[in-house]
Structures are given as C-alpha cells and as structure tokens.
C-alpha cells in the first residue's frame, strides 16, 4: 500500500461521513458551473439582458464561492477534530507531522477533485434544462447548449483554488496538539455548562429590541434602522445561542418537578450539551437561513409585483399626442399595421382630452367625454357610467386614489368656459396606467363636454387639449415588438432630458412587462438556487455534527437501554434532542425574516403599493416543509444508528 493508496482508502472507507460535505460541495460546483454557462453564453445578444445576466451571475457566483469556502472550512475542521484519535494513533505509530499534513492534503484534494468532476458533469448534464428555463424566463428565441472552454476553466480554477486553500489551512487544527491529547480527545463538558447571566439577558433583550423596532418602524426611520438592526440582531442571535439558551434551560433545571420527570431529565440535559457545543454552528445556520429566506422572500414579492402589473396597466398600448404633433397619423397607422402583422386583435378608442382650471382647487383638470369613457369601458369589459348634465365623476390615477376619491363630492366651475360641474365619486377601476394623463381627471356628460370651448388660461386652443389613443389588446403580453421605433424615440428623449419637446408620448406596457418579468424571474431563479445551496449546506452542518457525535451517543443509549429504557422512550428522547437542533435555528431565522419583512413592507408599500404578506407566508411554509422532510430523514438515519 503506497501512501497515496492509504489516503485514497481513508476517503473511500469514510465515505458515509464524507458524504455530507461531498454532496454540498458537489451541488455548489454544479450550480456554479451552470451560472458560468449562462454567463459566457454567446447567444445573449440583447445588451441590456447580457449585462444584467452577467452581473447577476457574477454576484451569485461570488456568494456561492465565499459560502462554499466557509462551509468547507468549518466542516473540514470539525471532521479533523472528530478523527483526532485516528491521527494520534498514526503519529504514535511513527508517522511524521509532515506526512500527516500530506495525508490530510491528499484526502482533501481527492474529495475536491471528485466533487469538482461530478459537479461539472452534473452541471453540464443539467445545463440544457437550466438554459431552457432561462430562455423561458427571458423570453428569448433560443438559448442552445454550447461547448466552450470558458465555463469549464472558470469552475475548475475557482474550486481547485478553493480546495487548495482548505487543504492547506485545515491542517492547522491538528498541528499543535500533543499525541496524548489527540489520542484521548477529551470532551470539554465542564466549560460547556458555563454561561453569563448578563450576556444571556442581553441577548434576549437585543433580539426583542430589534423585533420591536422592526415592527414599529416607519418610513422616516427605516433607513437608519436598516443600518443598526442587522448587526444588532446578529449579535443578539450569537448571544442567544451561546448564553440565553443555556440560561433558559438552566431555569427549567431548577424546577425539579419539571426537570426530574421521566425521560425529560436525559432529554433536557442532552439538549443543553448539544446546543452549547454547537452554538456557533447554530448561529451560522440561523444567519444563513435568514439570508436565504429574505432573498427568496424579497424576490418572490418582486414577482408578485408583476402579477399586479396588469391591474395597474389595463391598456395594451397608449399613445398621447398634442394637437400640433405632425407624426400623429403616421404613428397611429404604423401601430395599426404592426398589430395587424402580428395578428393581434385590438380596439382603438381615441379621446380628445380638454383641459380647464377648476374653481374649487385652482388646479388644471383633464376632462374626458362620457361616451369615450363608455366605449373604452365596453372594450375592457368594465361597468358603464351614466352622468346627468351638470354632473361629473373622478377617474382614478392610481390605486391609492381609488379610496381617497371614493366618497368625495365637489361643486366646482370649469373657469375658462364657465361650466358648473358637481363631481360625485370615482370610477371603480383603473382605466389608464397611473399618472399617464396627470393626477386630476374627471369625466363629464357629452353635453357639458361640448360647452367647453375656451382654451386653458394662457394657452391657445391648439395647446389646451390633446389626443389620446387607448388601444385595448386582449393578448397584451405579445405586444413587446409593437411600436419599438416610437418607443426608442421616447426613451432617447427621456435619457436626453428633453422629453417636453416631443409632441407625443408612447407607452407599451407589454414591453415594460416583459423586461420587468424577465429581470425579476431571473433574479428569483438565481436566488432560489443560491438559497438551495445554502440550505443544503445548513442541513449538512447538522447532519455532520450528529454524525461525529454518533459514537458517544450510541454508547450512551446502550447504557440507558441496559438500565431499562424502552424503545418508545428512546425515540422520544431522540425527538426531543433533534427537534431543537433542527427547528431552533430555523424558528429564530423565521422570526428574523418575518420581522425584517414587516419593516421591508414599509419600504415596499411606498415603492409599489404591493402587499408581500401572502408571498412571504407561502415562502416560509415552503421552507418549513422542506425542513420537516429533512428532519424526518435525518431522524430515521440517526435512530437506525443509535438503536442497539
């Protein structure tokens, strides 16, 4: 047996213990590789998409890389610690420290090489599928599988360097210990029972404070809180796991009738040891899970925004034009031709919008004609209105205005033409994209509309009213190629900040929607995959810790069984031991993200008037279900191992 064979056998025969972090690192390599496949894809020509996809992938890959480095470093050190007895024996048999380092290095590199190879293999195998999903999300024509050395080189380079770093540094943990210490690998149980009451209370207090602040936050302080709260909550979490948990369990222990009750004695004391022993790990798992929940939750809420997009933008295409606009008829016929070429059926409702000053508010009002509004309402399938002469109705300009204007009643005079109007209530649905006609819109009876003849004060007849073309298109998502030319002119004008000079304005919600949707769903998809890697790793941490403590647990259960512990009680003890280990970090992470979302909701509501509660609940339920499945899986393996 050569030295290399020895290292090889060590890995292969320890495969059950190596399995957890082999899985996690392989999965990480796989996702990393698929991201690079997208990053280097030659077929993404659209500049915006290309830039967006590449930068998104780079961020995701950096996160993956850092996290994998951290995860492997932690697992490796724990693993070497667990094998210290074996290393002690090797040293006693005359192995040099240098050889031991070489052994660990070889083993790590072997695992690394295998996970990189299988990761890339699976990554390439799933790339077609991945690219198909991305193609759907970005609504591209085609995104074929391709072969290029770039993604392969990047992945291999990144992960080989990572494994070399791990292999070089993890040896540090065994270097300075004496052989006798390695052989005995003393369990440090005494220091584990210690805690500081001050720190314990401080930890709980910090968490409560952070939660309280997050709940009662408002727009004015939210930015300051966004800087203060995360570090505070993180420190609070750390203290919570290292001190508060032990403190709380110790309070339970003082109550003998609670503590000295059947198997509770064993379960509680065992949980205390496990939680204290792995406090740092639970802290990490909690933070990682919180970040995963938050990113996925935020991204889901973004996509819920796209769901509400249609309600906010009920029209297919919108073109508004000043009466002086020389391109008007050309543009409208262009749009009609393009729609017909695409085979899209549409209803075109032209409006002439008149402007007057309201005597009530002294502001400019945009006035629509009742018959125009009704013909648009017919096209959209919305309720019709009936106005008596002298009466008027508000048209909502945003979701908020629906409620604000609902019960308003105003008596006003349209000053220039001297037409008295009594405005009552608001049209119950959004008719136009928000703010496209301005914020003050009313609809009046046709007869009253005819009476408005005088131009707005300080303007001519030509500039005090404008034409507005509303296209209703049932298949509005398919309009992204319509009017691209006009859209480019509008966008250019906006970028050059002289849009006022353009005598027309064009909006294509279908095109906007396709961009928003593509961006959000790609972000969500990327985030979900990163979160999946993080969660898998978090689960592996727990599995790994359980596995390294297995021998000791097994002996303990053997003694207890001999003393007369029934099988049912054993299962109950295992449950009470595993449930806190699985669900305490989980629960805290849940609380963290729930409260974070409470304050996010404040920001979010201001941005887009979207409630993210239902999406959040869905995401949290989903993650909990995964965790429950994971718990039962691990419990099943664990019980199979410890049962005598």
């Amino acid at each position: 047996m050569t030295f290399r064979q020895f290292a090889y056998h060590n890995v292969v025969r320890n495969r059950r213990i190596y399995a957890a972090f082999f899985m996690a690192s392989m999965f990480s390599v796989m996702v990393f590789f698929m991201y690079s496949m997208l990053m280097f894809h030659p077929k993404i020509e659209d500049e915006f998409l290309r830039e967006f996809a590449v930068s998104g992938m780079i961020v995701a890959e950096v996160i993956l890389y850092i996290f994998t480095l951290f995860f492997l470093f932690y697992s490796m050190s724990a693993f070497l610690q667990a094998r210290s007895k074996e290393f002690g024996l090797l040293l006693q048999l005359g192995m040099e420290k240098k050889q031991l380092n070489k052994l660990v290095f070889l083993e790590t590199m072997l695992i690394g090489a295998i996970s990189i190879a299988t990761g890339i293999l699976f990554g390439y195998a799933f790339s077609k599928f991945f690219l198909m999903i991305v193609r759907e999300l970005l609504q591209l024509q085609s995104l074929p599988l391709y072969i290029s050395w770039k993604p392969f080189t990047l992945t291999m380079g990144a992960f080989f360097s990572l494994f070399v770093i791990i292999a070089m540094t993890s040896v540090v943990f065994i270097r300075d210990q004496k052989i006798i210490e390695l052989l005995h690998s003393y369990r440090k149980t005494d220091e584990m029972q210690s805690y500081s009451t001050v720190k314990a209370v401080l930890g709980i207090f910090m968490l409560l404070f952070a939660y309280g602040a997050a709940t009662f936050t408002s727009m004015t302080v939210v930015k300051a809180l966004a800087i203060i709260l995360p570090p505070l909550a993180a420190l609070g979490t750390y203290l919570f796991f290292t001190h508060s948990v032990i403190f709380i369990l110790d309070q339970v222990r003082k109550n003998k009738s609670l503590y000295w009750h059947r198997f509770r004695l064993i379960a509680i004391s065992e949980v205390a040891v496990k939680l204290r022993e792995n406090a740092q790990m639970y802290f990490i798992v909690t933070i990682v899970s919180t970040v995963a929940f938050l990113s996925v939750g935020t991204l889901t809420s973004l996509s819920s925004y796209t769901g509400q997009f249609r309600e906010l933008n009920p029209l297919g295409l919108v073109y508004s034009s000043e009466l002086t606009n020389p391109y008007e008829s050309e543009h409208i016929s262009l749009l009609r031709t393009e729609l017909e070429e695409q085979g899209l059926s549409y209803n075109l409702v032209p409006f002439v919008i008149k402007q007057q000053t309201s005597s009530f508010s002294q502001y400019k009002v945009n006035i629509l004609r009742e018959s125009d509004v009704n013909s648009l309402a017919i096209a959209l399938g919305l309720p019709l209105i009936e106005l008596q002469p002298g009466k008027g109705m508000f048209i909502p300009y945003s979701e908020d205005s629906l409620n604000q204007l609902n019960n308003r009643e105003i008596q006003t005079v349209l000053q220039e033409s001297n037409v008295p109007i009594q405005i009552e209530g608001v049209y119950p649905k959004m008719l136009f994209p928000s703010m496209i006609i301005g914020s003050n819109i009313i609809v009046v009876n046709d007869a009253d509309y005819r009476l408005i003849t005088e131009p707005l004060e300080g303007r001519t007849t030509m500039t005090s009213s404008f034409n507005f073309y509303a296209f209703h298109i049932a298949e509005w998502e398919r309009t992204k190629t319509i009017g691209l030319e006009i859209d480019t002119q509008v966008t250019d004008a906006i970028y050059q900040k002289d849009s006022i000079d353009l005598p027309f304005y064009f909006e294509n919600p279908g095109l906007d929607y396709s961009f928003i949707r593509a961006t959000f769903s790609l972000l969500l998809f990327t985030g979900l995959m990163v979160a999946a890697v993080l969660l898998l790793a978090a689960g592996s941490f727990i599995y790994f810790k359980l596995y390294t403590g297995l021998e000791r647990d097994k002996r303990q259960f053997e003694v207890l069984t001999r003393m007369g512990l029934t099988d049912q009680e054993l299962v109950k003890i295992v449950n009470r031991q595993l449930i806190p280990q699985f669900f305490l970090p989980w629960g805290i992470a849940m609380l963290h993200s729930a409260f974070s979302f409470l304050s996010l909701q404040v920001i979010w509501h201001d941005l887009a008037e979207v409630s993210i509660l239902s999406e959040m609940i869905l995401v949290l339920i989903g993650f909990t279900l995964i965790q429950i499945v994971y718990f039962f899986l691990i419990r099943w393996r664990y019980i199979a191992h410890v049962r005598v």
Partner: protein
Amino acid sequence: MTILKMDEVTKVYEGKVTHRAINQLSFDVSKGEFIAVMGPSGSGKTTLLNLISTIDSPTSGTIMIDGLSPDEMSKTELALFRRRQLGFVFQDFNLLQMLTVEENLVLPLTLDGHPVKEMKKRVKDLANQLGLEQILEKRPNEISGGQAQRTAIGRALIHQPAIIFADEPTGNLDSKASRDVLELLAKVNLEQKTTILMVTHDPIAASYCDRVVFIKDGEFFNEIYSDDRRQTFFQRILNVLSLLGGNVNDLSTIRLS
C-alpha cells in the same frame, strides 16, 4: 429463596464461525447472596451477564429472575422489568456526563416516573450512606474514579432492585478505591440484604463474596463458599484459578500472607 435460576442455559452465536459461548450452564442465586462469577478471558462471562440482564436471549435453556421468565416478555416489558428489578454497575462507570452526580443517582427513578419528593428523600439517604453528600452537584468528570463508582452503585441501588449485576466494578480503580467499593458492596449486601452478582477477574474482589462460581469455556467448572477468614478464602480462590489452567496473566501477583 432462589432469586435467579439458570437451567441448562446455552448460547450459540451463529456467524461465519459458529461459536458456543455458554454451554448448558446451570446455577442458582439465593436472595441476599453476594456471588462472584470468575473465569479466564473468553470463558463467557460477558455473555452470561448479557443473558441474565435480559439484553440478550439464550439459544436454549431457561432463566428465571424473581420467579419471572424474561423469555416470555415483550421488548417493552423487558425494559420495564430491567428498570424496576435490576441494577447495573459497570467497569467504566457509565455515568451520564451531562448529568450531575445527584441527577445520575435519580435517573432510574425519573425514568419510572416517581414523585420528586420521594426521589429527593432517597438521594439524601443514599448520599449519606455512600458518602456522596459533598459531590452531589458535581459532574462525573470532576470526581475521582472511586467516587464515580460509588455514584454508579448508588444509581444501581436507588430503585431497590431485586438483584444487582456488577461487571468488573474494580477494573478501573486503584487498590484503595477498589477496597472502598468492595467494602461498600459487602456492606450493602449485609445491611440491606441486596442480592449482588459480580463478574470479575480479580481474586481479591471475589474474596469479598459469599460464593464464587468458576466457569471455563462457557461451562460450569467449580464453586467454592467463603469461610470465616477472607485471607484463606482468597488463597482457595487462587488454588481453583490455578486448577482452571487459564493463563498465568489471569492470576493476581498479590499474595496476602
């Protein structure tokens, strides 16, 4: 009155090599007796202990403990039986590291759901008797081997079992601590009439008993009863051991004059 009755007990381990660990072994233990089982390595002592502590079942033959047959009980009934009727003392103490001495002592009672008041009373009595009052709040890694074994004995006694099984209780102790533990066992046996079955290598430990049963290759070899003087009993044990023809290493080099 017989508390443990072994009748023609045989245990065969099937496997690549079939191994007959216990062969038609029969002996009785009376109530209140302090009995030692001795034999060279591989004579089947551990198998015997596993069989009578009901965590393993014999291939043939019957075992009766306190008039009950473990063979006819379900797994749960067996666990409850062990919990109430048997006490265990191990070579490496097997105290639970995360529990204090006091909690280790009450463990069998908590498993059985006794009221806290009663547990406290019994701990107080036992600690007094075993000299553990000062270390009740300590953890197993903070006390000496002798104290740990006394705690283990306390744990075996606290639920007043029908019989206590001790597996090499002095194997990990120095001579002073060994003597303390053996004297304690003898005292418990004398004062509380507790039946004790001890498996041991150590002729000194065996010499504290009322009777020593020798087994060899899983079969009954000989038995001797104690007399008035421990020294002569010890000498007779040595004689049998040399007859056993086991390994010289099994014989203690210590001779008491």
